[in-house]
């Protein structure tokens, strides 16, 4: 049985103070990291749009089921 995902707790005391203080700070990414992140997003978004079109076509051709998966 898979371990349950722990819920995000309410932050108290020092943890809460540290969290709020951290919210006030800015830690901007480097220009290189930003460029890489945006490249990754554009790549994945393009692949996602194509993949979902193809998935819908697969499902339409197979009675609503995607043969790449067990359909439950």
């Amino acid at each position, binding site marked *: 049985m*898979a371990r349950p995902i722990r819920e995000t707790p*309410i932050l*108290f005391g020092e943890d809460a*103070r540290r969290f709020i203080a951290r919210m006030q700070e800015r830690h901007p990414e480097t220009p290189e990291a930003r460029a890489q992140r945006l490249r990754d997003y554009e790549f994945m978004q393009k692949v996602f749009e194509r993949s979902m079109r193809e998935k819908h076509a697969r499902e339409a051709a197979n009675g609503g089921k995607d043969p790449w998966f067990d359909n439950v």
Partner: protein
Amino acid sequence: MVRQCIDNYNFDFIRLQPSNKVKNFDCGDVDLNDFILNRATLFDKYMLAVSYACVDTNDTSRPLAYFSLANDKIATSDFANMTEFNRFRRKQGFPNEKRLKSYPAVKLCRLAVDICARNQKLGSLVLNYIKTMFVINNKTGCRFITVDAYLAAVPFYEKNGFRMMNQEDDDPHTRLMYFDLMDLVA
């Protein structure tokens, strides 16, 4: 091999339907495998999470990577005293009527990469996509990404800008971490 498949676009990235049960997957962790192979569809069916998969189009029976997302929030409470609490809240710059005590977040419920796709930066690719998706296409307001990270994955999340939520966390399996999406807003 996997990098080649990504670079050559022999690679699909899809949102799974609740009926889409993954046939085969091995990320090297029994718990995570069990969740993805046997329980993920229930989370989707009852609208508790949405699942996505990256698939090598040359072997569609075994996803290269899997992740699921759900709504979450980070709530703060019980400062040492109210004066200190209010001082910090005022400094945030929210208008008085919008001083929040809890902040909307998205929870990265599970993120797993199959062992055949390790060391190809697929995890970072996925994380960069999620981060940017919630900055560019933030449909409902979402300030943070939260994750319940397996101990072995903590260095990966730290490298990707995540921070510990609690200073003292003695859970034997995971650490609660968060990422502030405001860091990405220029």
